[in-house]
């Protein structure tokens, strides 16, 4: 039983982090326009996040140093500050999107204007961050988030042409109705959604919050290699459900109600209830993670005291940063901007910022001063280098493709 709960950190980052509003919306948009022809990107992204989350968790557990301390120590204060600015900005966009997502999900069941739910959701996030223990929040949100499995169930209930789906996934082609540039733009968006840097900040800081040591590495591996692939399966199921229902009718996803549509068509009210619970848990979990990540990144860059394992009074600046982050997010939502739109941009900007986060992790994971005997093996380094190339290409191509395609229009 203890073991089951222990995997919860991985499950939380998988559900609340891997499948957050970014993955949900991006996969639904992609499914409704490209079918499963981009499913391979999700697999590439899952392998990448497993590789680097495992590395950063290992660095955290062995050396006791969190990711952003290392980013600054290795890249220097200047590049570190640029990275901090970019990471905080993307993190804030993601936090805004998650809180907006909670409000939109509540609107689906109550019909009440989401503008009213935004501040309420942000306040709930703050209360949890202020008062609740790390392990409690991860267990509760992780287990509730599992009800997103309803997407997998929906795919089976819809009774698709499996041969056709498999063909789309295995032999990807750009659909006749789309430009190749748009195809690659969404490939980068999906990749950014899968590899969002805040997952790594949260995961490495989480390892320190939980007081992980070298002996917990087996556990840490289990979390990564169970949690993230589970998130990947859900992502592909989301794309598949949209491909089955929305693609033939040429419905492009622009709102949360269209994301929900295939599940409702497959399973009716019961499926809808599971889906809303799952979405609320996933968005809420991701809102907690991004709130904490905004505190983690800034506190670690400047060397302030941080962590939920301390009383708020022992990490004052950390808590002030998180409060400011939540207030900013509510302020952005109050302008009436569409959270779905913020989500779509945030995943692409995530892709742009990836190299500055992942390069220092790879360097320090090879540093015996930090890691002792637990430095990277050859396989991890070979894969790490391959992924650095992919990440760099995605990062450089993201903005030009955004301009050429008019942000995927």
């Amino acid at each position, binding site marked *: 039983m203890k073991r089951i709960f222990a995997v919860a950190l991985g499950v939380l980052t998988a559900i609340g982090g891997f499948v957050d509003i970014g993955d949900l919306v991006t996969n639904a948009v992609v499914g409704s326009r490209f079918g499963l022809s981009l499913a391979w990107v999700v697999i590439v992204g899952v392998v990448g996040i497993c590789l680097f989350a495992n590395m950063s968790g290992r660095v955290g557990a062995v050396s006791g*140093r969190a990711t952003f301390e290392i980013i600054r120590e290795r890249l220097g204060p200047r590049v570190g500050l640029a990275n901090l600015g970019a990471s905080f900005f993307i993190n804030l966009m993601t936090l805004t999107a998650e809180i907006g997502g909670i409000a939109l999900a509540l609107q689906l069941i109550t019909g009440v204007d989401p503008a009213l739910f935004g501040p309420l959701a942000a306040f709930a996030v703050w209360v949890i961050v202020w008062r609740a223990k790390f392990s409690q929040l991860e267990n509760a949100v992780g287990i509730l988030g599992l009800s997103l499995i309803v997407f997998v169930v929906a795919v089976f209930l819809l009774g698709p042409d499996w041969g056709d789906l498999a063909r789309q996934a295995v032999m990807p082609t750009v659909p006749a109705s789309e430009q190749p540039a748009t195809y690659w733009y969404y490939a980068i968006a999906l990749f950014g959604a899968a590899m969002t840097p805040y997952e790594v900040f949260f995961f490495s800081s989480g390892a320190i919050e939980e007081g992980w040591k070298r002996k917990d590495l087996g556990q840490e591996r289990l979390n990564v290699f169970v949690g993230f692939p589970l998130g990947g399966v859900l992502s592909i199921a989301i794309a598949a459900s949209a491909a089955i229902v929305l693609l033939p009718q040429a419905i492009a996803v622009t709102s949360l109600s269209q994301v929900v549509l295939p599940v409702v068509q497959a399973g009716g009210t019961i499926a809808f209830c599971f889906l809303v619970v799952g979405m609320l848990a996933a968005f809420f979990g991701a809102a907690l993670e991004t709130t904490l990540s905004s505190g983690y990144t800034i506190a670690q860059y400047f060397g302030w005291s941080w962590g939920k394992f301390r*009383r708020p009074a022992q990490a004052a600046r950390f808590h*002030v940063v998180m409060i400011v982050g939540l207030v900013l997010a509510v302020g952005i939502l109050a302008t009436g901007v569409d959270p779905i739109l913020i989500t779509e941009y945030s995943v692409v900007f995530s892709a742009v910022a990836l190299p500055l986060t992942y390069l220092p992790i790879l360097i320090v994971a090879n540093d015996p001063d930090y890691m002792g005997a637990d430095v990277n093996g050859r396989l991890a380094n070979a894969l790490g280098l391959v992924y650095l190339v992919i990440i760099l290409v995605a990062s450089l191509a993201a903005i030009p493709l955004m301009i050429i395609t008019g942000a995927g229009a």
Partner: protein
Amino acid sequence: MTKSPTVRAGRLIDANLHLLDRQVLDPENMPVATVDDVELDDVLWNTPLPPGTPAPVVTALLSGPVLATRIFGGRPPESRWHRIAWTHVVEIGTAIRIGINANELDVSWVERWLRDHVIRRIPGGSHDPE
């Protein structure tokens, strides 16, 4: 507090590699600051050193506003420097440990100010998470 062998006299340290941008921890493992710069004794600023000058000695770790000038250039007035005297340093590893409590240092005044004026005034701010 006994010093670790990592700070024995005569150990060769690359200030850039082993000091700058490392986390400083106090005896209770509380993060204090990141080393933003170091203060050296007896070095005239902006003057070329004649060959054969003995190596300067690090007298203090600096943190605070000095970070801004390190990134953007310039030099803050000495009165604005927040120092952690080198004598407090007890260990140099992947983090730098000092033998004095964070609360006794000027470096952490912002933390104390926010703690006393903001965080402690919000209900639950002084309690362990439940």
